[in-house]
């Protein structure tokens, strides 16, 4: 019954969405009005100074959104930490369950990860620091960092080498520094999250003012949060 009514209404929705799509300017004109997009493409070079306009948008024009999403990640990580802490489960039960010996993965995996780990770190850092020049940035780099650390845990579940305290300090530090960079502008009489420092030479690593710093904070934060998330989810597997 549910299935049929679901089908009925979903087909209704498909029809309506199709109609709406047909009304979008993308089908009548060549493309969308792009009012803001054009303004940004025209002004980004002078106002922000990052070669990657998406980065200008993410950290400059819409920096607050980024701060918001960092907060969401932080919130999610906090919740996962809160919900999956061992205290929220019956300890006796988990002790009984511990007989599933989560031993290390095989030789190949362990050694491969050992080899790849530094590489992943470097790649991650590269992606983060070049976010304002090339595709990529704090998020993407942060994910790579998180993957690097969580792989360590996956291959060696019993020697989970990531320190919870460290993770939380990093995420706090990164978040705080993002905000502080924003607030400095406020103290200088400008607006919150206003890009500071000189734009530097367009297209070079040291350009776009505080953007790379912000991206560094974002990268660290994303890395820490994701690592924390994966860690928490993983540790629950162990507890279970």
């Amino acid at each position, binding site marked *: 019954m*549910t299935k049929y*009514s*679901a089908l009925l*209404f*979903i087909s*209704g*929705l498909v029809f*309506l969405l199709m*109609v*709406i799509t*047909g*009304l979008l300017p993308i089908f009548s004109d060549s493309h969308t009005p792009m009012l803001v997009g054009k303004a940004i493409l025209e002004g980004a070079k002078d106002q922000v100074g990052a070669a990657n306009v998406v980065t200008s948008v993410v950290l400059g024009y819409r920096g607050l959104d980024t701060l918001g999403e960092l907060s969401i990640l932080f919130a999610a990580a906090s919740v996962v930490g809160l919900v999956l802490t061992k205290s929220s489960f019956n300890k006796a039960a988990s002790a009984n369950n511990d007989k599933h010996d989560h031993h290390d993965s095989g030789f190949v995996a362990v050694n491969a990860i050992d080899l790849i780990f530094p590489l992943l770190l470097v790649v991650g850092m590269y992606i983060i620091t070049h976010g304002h020049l090339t595709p990529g940035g704090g998020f993407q780099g942060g994910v790579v960092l998180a993957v690097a650390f969580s792989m360590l845990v996956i291959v060696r579940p019993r020697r989970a080498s990531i320190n919870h305290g460290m993770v939380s300090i990093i995420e706090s530090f990164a978040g705080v520094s993002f905000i502080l960079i924003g607030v400095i502008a406020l103290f200088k009489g400008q607006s919150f999250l206003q890009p500071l420092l000189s734009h530097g030479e367009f297209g070079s690593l040291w350009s776009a003012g505080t953007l790379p710093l912000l991206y560094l904070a974002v990268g660290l934060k994303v890395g820490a949060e994701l690592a924390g998330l994966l860690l928490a989810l993983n540790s629950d597997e162990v507890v279970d």
Partner: protein
Amino acid sequence: MTLLDHLFIVVFSCLIAISVVRNLPIVDKLAPVLYGLILIMLVRMASVAYGGDAYLSSFSLDLLGFKMHWQFTALSWYFAIITLVAALASAVFMSGDWGRQYREGGGNYGMLQLALIVNVFSMILLLGSGDLLSLFIGWEFVSWASFLMMVLSPSKLAKKSAVKYIVYAMTGAMALMVAIVMIYAVNDSLEFEQISIVFAQMSGSSQVALVLLLFVAFAIKMGLLPFHLWQAVAYAETPGPGAAFLGAISSRMGMFTIVLVIVQFIGLGGLKSVGTSFANMQTLLAWVAALTTIIPTYIALQQHDAKRLLAWHGVGQGGYMLLGIIMFDSIGSAGGLMHVLNHASYQAALFMTVVAVMYRTGTSDLNKLGGLVTQMPLTFLVMLIGIIGLAGLPPMNGFVSKWLVYRSLLVNGQPLLFVAAVLGTLGTILSVYKLIHNTFLGQLRLEHQNVREVPWSMLVPMLGLSVIVFITGFMPGLILPWIASVQESVGLPVIAHHLGGIEYAKGGLDMIWVSGILFYGFGVGALIFYFLGGKSKRVHQYDNYAGGHFLTSDVRYHYSNNFYPGLMHLIGTWYRGSFQWLENSIVSVMSFFSVFFENIYRAKQPVMLLLIGVVLALLALYRNLGVGA
């Protein structure tokens, strides 16, 4: 500062004063004095009841763009004076011994005093309303004030019936609000005059809706059919003097608003213009009134609880008031209006006698009483006067108002309504006989051997009220000027009156003559009896026999159980809780929808609801706007 302002200030100060001292012993002395004070304030305004101008209040409020002001017309004054007399009587009645017993029984006496003054305050506020909004506010105040009084009784049934009452009352209030909104929406004004202006502009169906909404609102308060279910139980369960007060005047606020709004501003022409020539609104209301006189009266006949019996009569008597006023002629409306005062006086007195009996015996169950006349003769006298008034027999005041109503019905060519009214009176006579018989006559119960007359604090208000019942019956001319001013102020034809009654082209009424002849007849009868060899012998109540056998005191010989069995059998089939059924079926329909929505909220997969909501919303937009837009 006009006199009306003074009145408001005095009433409000009394409210504050009583709420402060309500738990101190002094409240017993203070409350009657305060009601007396308010009464004096009203008497100072008496010019309005003798053709003087209405008093306007200098207070006015402008809240959220709605202006409110207050005024006191002859109509307001007339109802206010009844209210205050009833309140004064109740306050005297409850102070002293009754109050002590109530407190000892666990009742919250302070709250009862407070409830009484709150009722008086809110009624004065309603009676003084000068526009639709202040009317509505007063209306709600009155509803909640009566609720306050009803819930005071600790019994579960009382609380349930109070809740039932407040649901009904809120329904009425909301109907009134819709009506007010309909009026406001036309000219953005809440003045009373707007009612007639807007009514004239409205389309036929809106007129029907407006009249029905107003009528429903007022009818609920007044307990007219089919909204009569709440009243009797709620009033009967109210603590003693509270019941007397509420029974006397509270539901008459519905009458006040009917006169104020429907009679004054919609008027006969308005009512007649709604509907067809065969059955217009006036006919409908008249028949509602007629049925209200009959059905509740015969329900009253079935009751075996004295308070409930009286309360059902209170519902039934409302029918006479409406029946009279709806005739829109001088005598009919005079009868209807006068019946308000008359009914208040004898109803309060009757309730008080029942409460007095309860005070001494602890019960108002008519099957458990009897023979109290020897123990409580004065109470018996009051009840006798009261039931003569209630039954509408001369020389008490109930006769006058009912006579006016009957006469009006006949003059206006409404024989069917007349028959209905007489049928109601018949039921009334039967049931008040049951009341007095089962309470005071017949055989005294063993457990009531030591019952004594009630103390003076209770007797005085009862006797005072019965004096009113008699005096206003003997000399209706005392209050007919008030009625005439009311008629004048609401635009009805004015009645011609003199001290003994009315002058009317098709046959007047002079109560002094009627009573004179009546007493003359009694006198002649007494003379014949005592001087022409009549002998009476005092015997003890138990000195009695039935079927040839002497009876001992523990054998009941007087019928109290299953009174009027034949009649009950006859009418039982006609009335078997059909209105209760109606009420229950409304509740069932509500339950049906409630369960329906409950199941929506219990959806297994709430996202489905989201999808349905979105699809339906988009579909509605699609149908409304189309793709071209």
